């Protein structure tokens, strides 16, 4: 254990030159992850970063751990094999909005419903960066891009809504450059099971400032709500909060006067409440809500790889692996005499 405390951010940096565009949000996320790792008490050799394809998927090359830069959309499937083969490994999946929700949407869904113990960091920049700026499955309607010169017409997917719908038991959000990102990562790591983290990541080249409406310093207080288990849902410096409109069964923003949130009917965050989580992730600034950030849903249940290991052990109990016996199984017969010449 002593050895673990010795690790620093340097122990998680590789000698490879980081190659993202200057000013890309990925740099900040990389630093946040590298800074968080020593605090998790994990060993680099037991840690595996697995990515698909896209700007974000270069991430493993910069982590001094084991790493597998796989193919487009398939990181969750590769990770499933890694974890089933060795459940002791600490698996992180690095993916993007196109990788996880378009070409790899199926694998993301199944990994979440199975509840494989791993962390999924989805860098959402609402654009295809590596292929030079086409719109993505999270791009807003009207996004002009090389493939949608007149604006996109299809509605975007909401990553956290998708995750909850797929059966995820941990859903959180962070922002690339926000100081709270390490604590979101720590919570994701502490959760046993599939931890889904959407990180709003600014693409400085193809989609700059797409999240500025809530990430800019000026907009942050009014348009960000950081959730804490057991704490009232307050934002705007405590001047506003969220209440539940019990008639309409939806959330509503209320003013809080003199810090008396109870009088304003502000509700307390319960991270085990799935219905509440669903409402929180669907809040948008366009509809007058702040964007929900932090740990939105955290309600563990048994993990897939443990169930597989347990069933394998149970099925093998009391049985001995004997190849000779195995090939001799079934209905057999003995041919005694020497073959006669025909």
């Amino acid at each position, binding site marked *: 254990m002593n050895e673990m405390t010795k690790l620093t951010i340097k122990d998680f940096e590789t000698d490879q030159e980081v190659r993202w565009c200057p000013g890309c949000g990925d740099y900040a996320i990389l630093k946040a992850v590298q800074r968080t790792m020593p605090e998790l008490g994990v060993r680099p050799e037991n840690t595996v970063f697995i990515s698909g394809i896209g700007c974000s998927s270069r991430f493993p090359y910069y982590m001094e751990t084991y*790493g597998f830069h796989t193919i487009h959309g398939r990181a969750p499937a*590769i990770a499933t*094999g890694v974890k089933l083969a060795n459940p002791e490994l600490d698996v992180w999946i690095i993916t993007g909005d196109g990788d996880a929700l378009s070409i790899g949407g199926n694998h993301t869904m*199944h990994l979440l419903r199975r509840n494989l113990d791993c962390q999924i960091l989805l860098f959402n920049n609402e654009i295809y960066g590596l292929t030079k700026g086409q719109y993505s499955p999270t791009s807003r309607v009207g996004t002009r891009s090389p493939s949608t010169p007149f604006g996109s017409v299809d509605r975007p997917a909401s990553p956290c809504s998708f995750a909850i719908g797929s059966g995820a038991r941990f859903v959180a959000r962070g922002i690339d450059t926000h100081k709270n990102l390490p604590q979101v990562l720590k919570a994701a790591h502490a959760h046993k099971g599939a931890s889904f983290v959407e990180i709003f990541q600014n693409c400085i080249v193809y989609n700059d400032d797409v999240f500025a409406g809530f990430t800019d310093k000026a907009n942050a207080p009014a348009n960000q709500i950081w959730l804490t288990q057991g704490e009232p849902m307050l934002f705007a410096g405590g001047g506003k909060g969220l209440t539940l409109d019990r008639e309409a069964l939806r959330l509503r923003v209320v003013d809080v006067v003199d810090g008396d949130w109870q009088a304003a009917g502000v509700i307390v965050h319960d991270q085990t409440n799935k219905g509440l989580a669903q409402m929180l992730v669907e809040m948008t600034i366009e509809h007058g809500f702040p964007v929900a950030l932090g740990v939105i849903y955290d309600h563990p249940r048994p993990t897939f790889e443990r169930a597989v290991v347990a069933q394998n052990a149970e099925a093998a109990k009391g049985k001995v692996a004997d190849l000779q016996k*195995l090939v001799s199984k079934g209905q057999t*017969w003995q041919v*005694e005499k020497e073959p006669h010449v025909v």
Partner: protein
Amino acid sequence: MQLTGGQFTLSTALAGNDLATFPDFPAEIRAPQGTLFGVSAFQINFGSTEVETAGDAPDVLIAMNPAALKTNVGQLKEGGLIIADEGEFGARNLAKANYEVNPLEDDSLARWQVMKLNISQLTLEAVKPFGLGNKEALRCKNMWTLGLALWMFGRDRKPIVDWLNSKFAKAPTLAEANIAALNAGHAYGETAELSGPMQQHFIAPAPVAPGLYRTVTGAESISLGLVAGAQLAGLPMFFGGYPITPASAILHHLSRLKEYDVTTFQAEDEIAAIASAIGASYAGSLGVTSSSGPGIALKTEAIGLAIMTELPLVIVNSQRGGPSTGLPTKTEQSDLYQAVYGRNGDAPMPVIAARSPADAFDCAIEAVRLSTQFMTPVMLLTDGYIANAAEPWKVPDMSGYAPFPVAFQEEAPDGKLLPYSRDEKLKRPWIKPGTPGMMHRIGGIEKQIDTGHINYEAGNHQAMTDIRQNKVLGIADHIPDQDVTLGEAGGRLAIVGWGSTFGPIHQAVRRMRARGHDVHHIHIRHIWPLPKNLGDLLKGYEKILVPEMNTGQLKTVLRDQYLVDARPLNKVSGQPFRIAEIEAAIESALG
């Protein structure tokens, strides 16, 4: 019908006959009974001498309804015996089979001997004491007919009785009813005064090497071979699969073998099946995946990843009729190009083909050996025929198989961690995550020689492409030379085959040689790389004929590799070759 066929197969094997079977069933689950497309047939060929095919023309056809008669009678040998359940030849069933007149009552079957029995009625009477409903009672008629067949060939009923008792352990009435039907059919043969064709035949046991035997299907033997291979390599096995006909049986078999350190995973799709297997190999297990043509197509990109990252992986392709969905339940050999060439980029991969259900066991072990000894994906080709067909199998002595244990790299030689360094076979080291001090990154982007870092330089890509190519081609130094299966090295005509055409080619060549023809049989297991001596061997024959259940894929590879005038003999009807078809081709080639 397939179950009934399986039980007759077993009783034939227990009687010591050699045998080969050909289950032929529709793609539909419970296809409507009585329709022409819904006929489920099971063909068996058995005898006192070596049997290698399910037979060209059966001697006996048991037709349980008019549709079964119509779809199969054309194959029956002239003068052969038809046993028909006349209870099923009513107006409705005749109409479903497009018969205007009852064929049992006109002279359309005059070329054969016809035995009409009201099997339905006889069965109903036999099972009357058990109080079953009409539908359930009629389901026993397969057993009644099996009883009759057992009598015809002097077979023991006991193994079938045991099987029925265990199959219906939870419904003893059904077990008893089926046994009663079986006994009634047998007794019918014994006591009814049947005249003419219906008589008992005793087939003496076939001369085979002494030892313990069992019947085995290709799906079983491949599963067993994979388990044996993993154990010989000293590795846990991870099998990622997705249901697809006719490959699913391998997933089913392996999922029951947990005590052999086997983890099976039914993935969400074909891509996830192979991707999870690659992940497992990366983590230090033997990754295995299995599918059929359309599924292999989906896995193609991931195969490229396994080639690029040089991880062990066994991919079993149970070929079926294509393209697209094609003929899911029919057999074909048309994925050879897909196996050898079917990837983006220069992506070499070893390919092995099994010739029979029994041979598939050794082929699976060989696939594991090459995969782990050379750090490469390997494709094992089998087909729908091999997967489903049963044959007697002399149980192998496992102590005769040399282990090929895997050594993971746990320390960097000379303190330098080089995940893409090479040994004398050009194999890179296998380093498992979890190994301290050996952290490194791999991926699908081109690798720098030795370090494995991302590298886009022209010279490096040329060198890495050459290394991947030479590593796979170098496998030819570690596989057996090509032998002549039957005949001599050199002569007038070589029949060159691969995969499940083995039986009909072998029998045809044997017969033609017995008639004095200068013809020889070569059967290739290692499709890629090809055995080193194959080119010289082929050049020793005046003519080369390549029978394949495709439009000439191995033929093209042989021409390309050796500039020999290999000629095709092709069949893509979803049915295996008949011996007579190959005999005719030999005759015509020899002029």
